[in-house]
């Protein structure tokens, strides 16, 4: 019986991108449905009634919500090219850093483009501090997963298409502060699963400009 896989998503969402990259790494065919978040589809509201958010993975009619839960699910169902290390301790470290990205990075990144002045400066500093910690964790490895993309790579790399927005709005250069992260992004972009998934950073910036006007942040 063929698998039916649907992904409810929104094109610039770093959370949705995690699912797209994971599915591509595993070679899974799926139907991509882009949501209009100001007018959510009945399917989205039905399959994620608690949070009403994207991404949602619908596998043979069953919905899986929350991007980290989705990535782990994809990894456990389609066992080729495992994203998680074998060793329990290394697995725990991978989960820790993925959780760190979620707890810290998204929040300060968003605050960079949503705020001005002192608040923005504070957000920039926090953002750079987070990336420096992540640089430390990467060390000399080509990827967080070692020789190939792993869980942390998939969780973190989607933010790369938002870097241009943070840098332009925040008036700073991520490469100057965290060159190893940018080098790692370039290596990730050599992988088709990443380069084909990530949208053009300039398009993301245009969207943010539009959102800022809409929410009166200028």
């Amino acid at each position, binding site marked *: 019986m063929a698998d039916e896989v649907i992904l409810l998503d929104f094109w610039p969402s770093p959370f949705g991108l995690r699912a797209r990259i994971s599915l591509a790494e595993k070679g899974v065919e799926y139907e991509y449905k882009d949501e209009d978040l100001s007018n959510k589809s009945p399917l989205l509201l039905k399959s994620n009634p608690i949070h009403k958010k994207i991404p949602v993975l619908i596998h043979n009619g069953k919905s899986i919500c*929350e991007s*980290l*839960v989705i990535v*782990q*699910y994809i990894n*456990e169902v389609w066992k080729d090219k495992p994203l998680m290390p074998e060793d*329990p*301790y290394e697995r725990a470290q991978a*989960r820790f850093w993925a*959780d760190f990205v979620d707890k810290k990075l998204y929040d300060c990144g968003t605050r960079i483009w949503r705020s001005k002045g002192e608040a923005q400066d504070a957000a920039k500093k926090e953002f750079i501090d987070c990336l420096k910690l992540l640089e430390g964790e990467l060390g000399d490895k080509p990827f967080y997963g070692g020789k190939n993309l792993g869980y942390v790579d998939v969780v973190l790399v989607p933010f790369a298409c938002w870097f241009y927005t943070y840098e332009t709005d925040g008036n700073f250069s991520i490469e100057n502060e965290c060159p190893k992260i940018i080098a790692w992004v370039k290596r990730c972009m050599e992988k088709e699963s990443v380069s084909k998934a990530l949208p053009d950073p300039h398009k993301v910036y245009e969207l943010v400009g539009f959102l800022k006007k809409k929410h009166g942040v200028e």
Partner: protein
Amino acid sequence: MGEVKVLGAWPSPFVMRARIALNLKSADYEFIQETMNPKSQLLLESNPVYKKIPVLLHNQRPVCESMIIVQYIDDAWPTGPSILPSDPYDRAIARFWAAYIDDKWFPSLSTIARAQGEEARVEAIKQVISGIQLLEEAFEKCSKGKSFFSGDSIGLLDIALGCFLGWIKTTEKMAGVKILDPETVPHLVGWAERFCADSAVKEVMPETEKLIAFAKAKFQPPSK
């Protein structure tokens, strides 16, 4: 299986998660009570990112963040009973609700104690109760008629929610509200009794009277 230490504090529900998981695996461990004020050198060294408890030290290697610790214990002690379900979809559902508890439900519970003014308190209580209602429905779906979220024995989601039972009882007594109401959430009430009575939980669940005294000292310190 090596040297195991848990760095934590007896009132913390997050610390309890680690201890329940180790008990389920019949793993021996040393419980080190963290001083907190000031934070110990051991804590600062083993959790430099967050400087928070619990920290699990397995052969001196630290694992941080309670739900990550629980999953690590499940992976590292493969011969004991499984804490995570075996089916990937069931695992996803357990992880989803564990994330809901940590990201949405627990913050509303802790808001009750810190709420400024009656209106804020009432609102916080409403949120906690509506969250519990969702968890009652989740229990009916996950347990499939059995004793725990995970089925016949305690699993990830039982641990994720059950660790708060002491604090739920404390909040009920101190705020004069019923959160685990047998009229509205009968399944969870039954589950709570079974969870607290389980041998892996009994010795690490703090007594409500002790938690009340702790909460009074922390949230309502006597005026100078």
